[in-house]
Each structure stands twice: as structure tokens, then as C-alpha cells.
């Protein structure tokens, strides 16, 4: 089947997609679905992509887009997990929580369909052991059938054949546009901007760092960039109380950090 990527089979049996991979990783680490250690899952995933690259695998378009979906899914999870567990007030927080619930719901639903598919497969196999009586009509009865009405000229028939044989242009698939955004915002670029600013002045609040953002997307990108910087130990966070302003301290030396070091998670080169 076109969907089975040989590369994935090494790691997970029956890989069929990002949700499958997520489920597989979750199962592999025997984690409760609500307690997913995102870092582990993410690291595992990134390790996998790197290995693929080292092997010099060509990136098929399908495969690449599946990776993007996985990455987006992981980011969703990551973002949602960073919300404080306590009270939430802003609409955005609620939206994030809902996104997380939705994601878990999706995973559970996906798992349910996987299980049911197993049942279906078993039934189809068992039922395949019964053969229906499907014999040609006895000649006696076949000869009783009314004479066919045939009105087609050879030319009409040829036109019919031509239409039937014409390679069908793939019917327009509804393209999911929900994940597309107006413009592209690079996490790496935003990290660079933040790096420069924080090296000039530290600490800064998240509010201050995003004050000039002209779209939510830039805010999100800067948030993700901060997570990256945090992972690279370039910044530290400081928050006095839940939902209070988040202060960001620059902890890396001036020359120790550059956006080039940023994890390739977002800026993977083909």
C-alpha cells in the first residue's frame, strides 16, 4: 500500500499515519494518554527524522506533509501542556485547553476505529470462507430474457468508450485548509528577534516581547521560539503567580547562542 512507509516499519508495525505514530509512541512508552511525556515523544520523533536523513532517504511529498502534521500535532500537545492546570480565564486559554481535549479525543477516536477495523478484518476473513451460489442462469431461463433493445450506432458506442476510458482527472479533494495561515512566520526568525532583544535588555515580560506582534501567529511563533530557547538553555522563565506576567531572563552568553543552533525541528532542510 502506498501509505506504508518502509522507513517507519522498522520502528512501528503497521504505520499508517501521524496519529498512528503518536499512538505507537505513546504505547511504546507505556504512558497514560493524559500524561504523555511530550519531550520524550518529541525527541524520539526528531531522532527518527534525523536517522532518516542520515540514511539519505529521499523525502516524498506525502511523507513530508505527514511529518508536518505530526510536528503540528506534537506542538499542539506541547503548547496545551504548558497551560497551568488551575483556573483559566482568557478565551485563548480555554481555546488551548479545548484544542488539547480535541486532540485526545481524536487520538481515542482513532484508536477506536483501529480496534473496530481489526474486528471488521476478522469478520471479512471468516465470511470469506463462505462462497455464495452465483452460477450463470440456466440456458433455458436465459433464453426467456427479452431481446435487448440496442439503439447505439458504432460511433455513439465509441464515444461512450472514449468517455469511459478517459483517465479521470482526480476528483477535487476537499483540501483541509484549517491548518493553513495567511502568511508564513518563521520560528527561527522570531527566535533571532527575541535573542537580540533579550541580549539588549533582560528580563523582559512576554507581554513586552509580543507587544509589537501584528498577528496572533507571530505571538504563537514567539512563544514557540521561547520554548526552543528554553530548551537550549538560552533563557529562563520567571512567573510570580499563576497567570501573572511571565518574565524572561537571558541566561546564555552573548556569543554562545545564535539562531543557527536552533533545533531543526521547525526549519528542517529537505
Amino acid at each position: 500500500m502506498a501509505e506504508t512507509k518502509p522507513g517507519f516499519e522498522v520502528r512501528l508495525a503497521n504505520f499508517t499515519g501521524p496519529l498512528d505514530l503518536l499512538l505507537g509512541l505513546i504505547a511504546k512508552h507505556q504512558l497514560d494518554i493524559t500524561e504523555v511525556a511530550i519531550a520524550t515523544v518529541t525527541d524520539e520523533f526528531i531522532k527518527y527524522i534525523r536517522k532518516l536523513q542520515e540514511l539519505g532517504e529521499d523525502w516524498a511529498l506525502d511523507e513530508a506533509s505527514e511529518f508536518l502534521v505530526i510536528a503540528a500535532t506534537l506542538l499542539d500537545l506541547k503548547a496545551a501542556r504548558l497551560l497551568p492546570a488551575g483556573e483559566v480565564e482568557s478565551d485563548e486559554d480555554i481555546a488551548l485547553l479545548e484544542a488539547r481535549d480535541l486532540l485526545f479525543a481524536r487520538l481515542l477516536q482513532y484508536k477506536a476505529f483501529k480496534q473496530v477495523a481489526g474486528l471488521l478484518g476478522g469478520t471479512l476473513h471468516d465470511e470469506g470462507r463462505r462462497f455464495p451460489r452465483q452460477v450463470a442462469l440456466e440456458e433455458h431461463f436465459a433464453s426467456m430474457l427479452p431481446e435487448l433493445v440496442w439503439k447505439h450506432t458504432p460511433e455513439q458506442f465509441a464515444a461512450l468508450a472514449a468517455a469511459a476510458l478517459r483517465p479521470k482527472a482526480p476528483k477535487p479533494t476537499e483540501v483541509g485548509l484549517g491548518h493553513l495561515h495567511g502568511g508564513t512566520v518563521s520560528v527561527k526568525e522570531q527566535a533571532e528577534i527575541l535573542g537580540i532583544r533579550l541580549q539588549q535588555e533582560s528580563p523582559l515580560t512576554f507581554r513586552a516581547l509580543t507587544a509589537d506582534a501584528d498577528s496572533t501567529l507571530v505571538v504563537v511563533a514567539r512563544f514557540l521560539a521561547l520554548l526552543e530557547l528554553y530548551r537550549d538553555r538560552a533563557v529562563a522563565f520567571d512567573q510570580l503567580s499563576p497567570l501573572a506576567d511571565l518574565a524572561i531572563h537571558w541566561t546564555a552568553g552573548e556569543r554562545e547562542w545564535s539562531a543557527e543552533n536552533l533545533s531543526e525541528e521547525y526549519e528542517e532542510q529537505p
Partner: protein
Amino acid sequence: MNSADSPEGRNDAQSWLRHLPGGAKAALEAVLMVVDQPATEDELAAGLELTLGEVRKLLADLQADYNGYTVKAPDEEQASSAGFGSSPRGFELRNIAGGWRIYSRPDFADIVGKYVLEGQTARLTQAALETLAVIAYRQPVSRARVSAIRGVNVDSVVRTLAQRGLIEDAGTDPESGAILYRTTSYFLERMGISSVAGLPELSPHLPGLEGIAEFYDADRM
């Protein structure tokens, strides 16, 4: 032809059937020999000029007859003279996809399989099975929605399932204009069930997610 509704007609037909060797049961059997798709009880009743009740009774008789049963000593003689045997036949009568049809008994699948090459369908891949499951439980459903649930592009799998006759076009979504898919009666036949309602329940596999449909519609791409 006498109408099955008129009492005279019915009596004629019945007495006529009764005079044939084996009676109405054998006549029903004869018809079942030429059907090449499941025959509904309505069709059979109309064709044999019997009431629905009579046809159902005869179908049940034939089914039990083919399955064989252990007769107790006092009944054995009667059973035998009525044309009943106690040992199962090589075939069975099943009510599938809304109609009745004769099938070879699964015990003999290995032997029958040597003769019937066509119709032996290759196994579906895991991806095809999962896609089929989503379509079966969410029909009528668009490819995009199936993709969203499965997390992958399902175009080629949907094409394969349609070629295998397991799913079909069910019109277009009035809102998005996307083609909707549903399972076919061939799917029911392959599953050995009468209708989609005969599919195993999905809910036990979906713990605490009764509201999932709403979730999904909100997330619809």
C-alpha cells in the same frame, strides 16, 4: 396472473404448489437456485404467490433443514418423511444484506476454494480496513472527513475500496460539495450482516467520548 391478495388466487396458487413434488418448500428451493444476489422475502413471496409469513416459515424450515439437527427417536420417522435430514448439508441458507441466499458451508472452504477462483478477494491492507471502518460508522462521509479521522490522506485507499465494490458514491455534501461515500450491499454480504445496524458497536471502544460527533464537527476541515 392471480393476485396474491385475492383469496381465490392464493388458494389456487397454494393448491397448485401443493401438487408439485416437494410442494412450496421445494419451489422456494428451486428459486433460490437461480438467484445471483440476495433475494428479499418480498420478492420471494411475490414470485411464489405466498404470503410473507408463509415464505418466512419456509425459509426458516429450509435453513434448519440444511443445518441439520439431532432428531429424537420418536420424531425421526416423521422428520425423515418430511424430507428432513439430521446431518448438515454442504451448503447453508443465510439472510444477508436484506435477502436470502445459498452459501457453501465454511467448513469446506479449503476444498471449495480450489474450484472458485473468482470472488476470492485478496485481503485488505490495514490502511484499507481502517478507512472502511471509518466510512462504515460515519457514512455518508467525505474523504476529507475520513482523512481527518485517520490523520492521513485516504484518496488511494478510497479508490481501491470503490473498485472492490465495498463503498460507493453517495452524492455530494450540500454545503462543501464534497463527494460523500457509503458502504454497499456487497459490503454487507462480505460481512455476513443484514444491515449496517449489524456492525459491532463502536461505543465500547470509545470510552467517555459520547460527544465525539460534536467534537468532530467543530474540528471539521
